[in-house]
């Protein structure tokens, strides 16, 4: 009886992992495919590789925000695809996860807006700047709100993630800048730096969460 319950529990955990991976792959592929098609059609201007990668990273943020936001909005459904024990855990974490979802949405939108800015994109630079600054102000305010809602584990994860993101950015961005300085590669564009900050912060967050057991199926 007990063994059956444990087997069911393990099966449920892996079913949740499969659902999450499936949703991620489906939307990731659809998003990337849609962006490349739109870019090729010229509807977004004539985006170069640098802008396409920035827009893709922005979309990863937007997609992640949508998934977390949907889970927070409807905990009973969210518990079936988010890595939580049950829907009550989502309710307990509503404030923190809600702020996190909005923060990620704002970061993603800012990156997409900057990627789509003129001269080669379709958004006027002044509008892109004003909106990006406003969105990053939202991220800053929410960051302070989130910090107040964090317990000690989340504060530790946040600190370790930030620290790792710095070292990754120094390694990747610094290595690229060094190669460019010596003439072995083209110099990173200003947008590439913003993409590196956002992308490597996401990578660092995943690594830190994995290290602290937060990605283990529950």
């Amino acid at each position: 009886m007990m063994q059956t319950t444990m087997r069911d529990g393990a099966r449920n955990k892996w079913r949740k992992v499969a659902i999450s991976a499936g949703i991620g792959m489906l939307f990731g592929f659809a998003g990337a495919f849609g962006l490349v098609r739109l870019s090729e059609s010229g509807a977004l201007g004539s985006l170069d590789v640098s802008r396409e990668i920035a827009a893709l990273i922005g979309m990863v943020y937007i997609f992640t925000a949508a998934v977390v936001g949907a889970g927070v909005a409807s905990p009973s459904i969210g518990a079936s695809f988010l890595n939580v024990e049950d829907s009550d855990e989502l309710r307990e974490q509503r404030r923190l996860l809600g702020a996190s979802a909005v923060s990620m949405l704002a970061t993603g939108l800012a990156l997409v807006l900057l990627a789509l800015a003129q001269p080669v994109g379709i958004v006027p630079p002044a509008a892109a700047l004003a909106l990006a600054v406003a969105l990053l102000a939202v991220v800053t305010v929410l960051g302070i709100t989130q910090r107040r809602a964090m317990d000690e584990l989340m504060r530790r994860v946040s600190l370790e993630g930030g620290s790792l993101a710095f070292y990754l950015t120094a390694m990747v961005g610094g290595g690229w800048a060094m190669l460019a300085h010596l003439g072995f590669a083209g110099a990173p564009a200003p947008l590439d730096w913003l993409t590196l900050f956002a992308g490597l912060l996401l990578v660092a967050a995943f690594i830190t969460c994995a290290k602290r057991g937060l990605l283990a199926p529950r």
Partner: protein
Amino acid sequence: MQNRVKHWREAAGWSQGELARRLGVSRQTINAVETDKYDPSLPLALRMARLFGVAVPELFIDHWEPEEEE
């Protein structure tokens, strides 16, 4: 660091959520402590020990031994 938090929590008949609520932390924190992924701060360790009515060394096991002086 090894710990016996799960043992004492189960002995008290509490779920991770119940222990988290009593300590004012998230369930993830309790889970991370129990699976040895996170060593809690000293204040949290003291609160855990107080809640279970045991001493901290009964909850958290450190195998370190001081070097013997010659």
